[in-house]
């Protein structure tokens, strides 16, 4: 009886929270903002595939955070007695040519993957957003200059440009991140500029100008928040491409250097045993595939939630 009454108190509290969040007359700034986020969350969880994507990303983040605890072996400890072992209860995903446990290496590799995509996102997205909104809002010759620079960067295939930068900067994961970030921002600038041009003529911008708001306040407070949703969606969808580019650079020996357990580099070293010991190359490949899929599913779900054209959210 005590448990059931405790339960009913819990559900009662839950209902009150729900009502508070969905209130049409919020009493504070925080309540208004949280209520808005809650409605977005309700839309998001309706999308089964997006939830799968979110689940994959959560597993990736958890694996990266807990890598030393959950990985059964040290990622870089060679054990030549057990090299190229197939999948077994001792080594769930087998071992590589130096006898290192592939599962442990993939778990530790998730840190590198996360490191790359987070850094690329926090470098490329703000740069693209700033360049795009400034070009779109100010217009004139500044717009022409910024957009032609963007065009020049867009004219090269991503991987080729990244390859050129890495060969100039020298191989290594930091340089790979810089190279990928340099190639990733132009599409964001394009998107932000296109959104800004549609927003710039809106009456609410005119109204703010009439109140004496300067260009910095207008771009930062009025234009950027409206560009942000489509940018977040685009960045999430690009994550898969960033992972693939990073893995591609690793595969070519220009990204993460041995013995780092970077997934692309792992595939590259497994390539020599592809026919006889297929798991050495296939397992990191599956990891790349699953994480890329996760980000794509998440991005699609976010698009439904964050679409700025969807009124009332």
């Amino acid at each position, binding site marked *: 009886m005590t448990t059931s009454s405790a339960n009913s108190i819990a559900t009662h509290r839950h209902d009150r929270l729900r009502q508070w969040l969905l209130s049409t007359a919020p009493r504070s700034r925080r309540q208004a903002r949280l209520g808005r986020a809650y409605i977005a969350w309700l839309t998001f969880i309706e999308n089964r595939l997006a939830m799968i994507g979110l689940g994959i990303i959560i597993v990736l983040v958890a694996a990266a955070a807990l890598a030393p605890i959950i990985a059964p072996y040290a990622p870089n400890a060679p054990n030549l007695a057990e090299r190229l072992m197939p999948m077994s209860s001792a080594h769930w995903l087998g071992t590589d040519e130096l006898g290192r446990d592939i599962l442990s290496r993939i778990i530790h590799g998730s840190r590198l993957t996360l490191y790359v995509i987070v850094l690329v996102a926090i470098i490329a997205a703000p740069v693209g957003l700033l360049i795009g909104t400034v070009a779109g809002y100010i217009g004139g010759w500044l717009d022409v200059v910024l957009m032609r620079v963007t065009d020049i960067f867009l004219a090269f295939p991503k991987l080729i440009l990244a390859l050129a930068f890495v060969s100039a900067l020298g191989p290594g994961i930091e340089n790979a991140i810089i190279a990928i970030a340099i190639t990733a921002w132009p599409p964001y600038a394009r998107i932000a500029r296109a959104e800004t041009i549609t927003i710039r003529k*809106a009456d609410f911008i005119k109204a703010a100008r009439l109140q*004496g708001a300067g260009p910095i306040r207008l771009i930062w407070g009025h234009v950027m928040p409206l560009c942000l949703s489509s940018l977040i969606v685009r960045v999430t969808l690009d994550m898969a491409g960033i992972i693939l580019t990073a893995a591609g650079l690793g595969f070519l020996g220009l990204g993460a250097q041995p013995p780092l357990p970077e997934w692309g580099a792992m595939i590259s070293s497994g390539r020599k045993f592809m026919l006889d010991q297929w798991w050495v190359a296939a397992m990191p490949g599956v990891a790349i595939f699953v994480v890329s899929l996760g980000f794509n599913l998440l991005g699609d779900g976010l698009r439904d939630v964050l679409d700025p054209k969807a009124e009332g959210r």
Partner: protein
Amino acid sequence: MISVNGLDVVFGRGHRALRAVADASFEVEAGGVYGIVGESGSGKSTILNVLSGLNRRWNGTVTIDGERQGQRRDQDFHKKVQMVFQDPYGSLHPRHTVDRILSEPVAIHGLGQAEDRVLRALEEVGLGPEFRFRYPHQLSGGQRQRVAVARALILEPRILLLDEPTSALDVSVQAEVLNLLTGLQRRRNLTYILVSHDLAVVAHMCRRIAVMNRGVIVEELGVETLRRRAPEHPYTRQLLDASIGYNREAVATMEEFEGGV
């Protein structure tokens, strides 16, 4: 309070140039309500954009409160002159709460006591404090326009430019907003310039009215002349006929009037 002399606005250049306003002159006394009527494209909104400083390419002289205005306006000007736009669905930022919309001008001009001012402004336009943290999508068209009026008033301007403030609203809500605007004008002794294509709205609000056609002010008349239905210019008469409603005879006698282009 406001005096406009020989105002010319040209859009575009060369052979594609369009003279949107041609040699417009009028005066509005302090505390007056001045109406500008005309059909779409007659240049009436362009005049407001020049007065508010949104349009920076014009010729002529504009004097507001004794100061001759240049192409650019300073912060003091914005405290003195504010504007209400036609479409309340487009004039409020979709991601800002009412609170943010109203407190931003206070922050820009560093007036302080934002909370007090926001609550007072809401009260003044007939909205309770429960509206303070709503987003525009949680408001009806009439409520949105009230928020837009509150935003215009929060800087305590002396001149309000109204660009078709009711034409995007339902007829019943139109009357509410018009009464609100009339009440505010009397209480605060504001100077209004109201632009509309609706003669009934203009006749209800304004004492003096300018009739525009193709960029030219064809006639300026008092509201009594309009009520007596005795305007001088045939274009005004035609506009009056059109305001009664669709009429087969009136359509048959419609004619085109030459603008000043």
